[in-house]
């Protein structure tokens, strides 16, 4: 019963199997974990926005900026908490050892973990709850409307671009993308820490510390070259002044660096 070669049996590239393993990782997250992320994330965004939106004479654009920035911090915490075990748990329970006992390089394994988990985290923690929140935000932007289902339906039926400070859906999507990239960057950092550590407490500590560093970078005004630029870029009034492309590139580049270092580090780890 010799196994017939399905494709090129002599394939020995460093990244063979990435697609297969990424799908396994994605299916590990979807749909249950991603739904949990969304359910945990959405109410916080809505609560913050409505709480702030009720204040008189506050332009909604500012309200939204503060709400999204606050929400970003919540997303950071949620991502750090949920992604700490992406690699560490697999090492701890032996799944990683079993997988890399197959003809798969460790670099491919780490990359697959990232490629599989990133869309699930971005969708679950940011994109889906963010988009679901948009009509509620639009309703809240109408200072005269009452909070509730009637207001949401009412807002959806009107031209929301007339509201002062409410970003268009396109602008809003860019803001969400930047927050999603921030979430993906933190996933990459958790992979990096997980490539050497298995202690949940240590992973959580390092994850929170890396998030704190981003916040400090933003506070120092050197945000443009760091993934933390997302915190600032969500401010609607800065969308034009602050180029979005460098922010995207910075976030992607830092994420890629973290994954590369994680793969290099994991390659040397005893399993």
């Amino acid at each position: 019963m010799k196994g017939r070669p399905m494709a090129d049996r002599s394939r020995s590239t460093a990244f063979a199997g990435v697609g297969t393993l990424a799908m396994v990782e994605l299916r590990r997250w979807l749909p249950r974990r991603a739904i949990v992320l969304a359910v945990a994330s959405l109410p916080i965004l809505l609560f913050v926005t409505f709480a702030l939106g009720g204040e008189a004479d506050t332009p909604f654009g500012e309200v939204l900026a503060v709400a999204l920035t606050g929400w970003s911090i919540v997303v950071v915490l949620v991502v750090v908490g949920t992604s700490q075990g992406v690699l560490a748990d697999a090492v701890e329970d032996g799944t990683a050892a079993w997988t890399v006992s197959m003809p798969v390089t460790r670099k491919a394994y780490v990359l697959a973990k990232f490629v599989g988990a990133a869309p699930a985290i971005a969708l679950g923690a940011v994109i889906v709850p963010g988009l679901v929140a948009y009509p509620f935000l639009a309703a809240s932007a109408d200072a005269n409307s009452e909070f509730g289902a009637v207001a949401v339906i009412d807002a959806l039926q009107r031209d929301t671009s007339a509201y002062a400070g409410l970003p268009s859906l396109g602008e809003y999507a860019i803001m969400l993308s930047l927050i999603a990239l921030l979430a993906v960057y933190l996933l990459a950092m958790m992979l990096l820490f997980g490539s050497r550590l298995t202690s949940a407490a240590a992973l959580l500590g390092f994850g929170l510390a890396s998030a704190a560093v981003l916040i400090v970078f933003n506070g120092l005004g050197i945000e443009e070259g760091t993934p933390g630029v997302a915190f600032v870029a969500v401010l609607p009034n800065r969308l034009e002044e602050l180029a979005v492309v460098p922010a995207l590139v910075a976030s992607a580049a830092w994420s890629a660096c973290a994954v590369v270092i994680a793969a290099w580090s994991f390659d040397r780890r005893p399993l």
Partner: protein
Amino acid sequence: MSASSTAPAIEFHSLRKSFGRTEVLPGVTTEVPTHSVFGFLGPNGAGKSTTMKILMGLLRPTSGTARVLGLDVERDSLEVRRRVGYLPQSPAYPSHLTVAGVLGLAAKLRGVADQTDSLLETVGLTDRADRRVQGLSGGEAQRLGLAQALVGDPDVLILDEPSAGLDPAGRREVLGLLDDLRTRATIFYSTHLLDDVARLSDTIAVLVRGEVVADGPIDQFTIGDTSSTWQVRLDGPTAAAAFETLARQPWVASVDCAGSGVATVDTIDRTTAEHELLPVLREAGGHVAELRPTRRSLEDIYFSLTGGTNGADGEDGTDEGQADG
């Protein structure tokens, strides 16, 4: 690159592994003949799992060389893993996968056609195909472990304690399965269950504190290589005198008389004993009713080699602890 049929399937020379200051393997050297069922014996903490992990590229040796099918386990690690099926000591799979899903994933990663149905039949898990791996019993999980190791019909199977933790029925099933596989692959497996070794292995190595203290064909141990033990029964009143004469021979180590003309004779030279034992007894007036070589029990041999030690408990715990440290 393929190994010739006479070359050993697995060989390691002066293989060392240290975790920090703790030396787990001080320098292991042995060879696993092609098409053998090789039992890697040793107490807990002897270094069996560490050796196997090095062969599979899960650990890097501190020094020394290891080759599988003529391939260097470090330089040609991917090719080694493509041609070797491995059962870890505690196999774990992505928990959301089903039994069939694990085998399908293994086939994709190995780049071979899906053999799920035939492998499930081989290991008797056809009716568990759609069950999640989390819900399997210990015996079922171990059989799944064997099935995934067989994906791609590997030339070599490296099995870390394949019957550990199984009840007697599960153990019998797994050993039967391995017995069936002996014609298909070289089997290198670790265990500290001597009954398994006696039933399955044709070659063994005994590892104690990271060193191979004995290796070779199992008959060499149970029958003896140079030395040998014989069971002798003499009839008639001349038995005692004949045993006394026998005890004076230079190639006889001891004669242990049990009464009624029965004695156990230990010799230091097997060949001489085979030629001289019967003539000496007859010349001494003994009427030989029974003369046969006795097999030493594997348990006796094992404990004489290991000094009766059970070693340090939790080999894997040692590995992981050191690895993290």
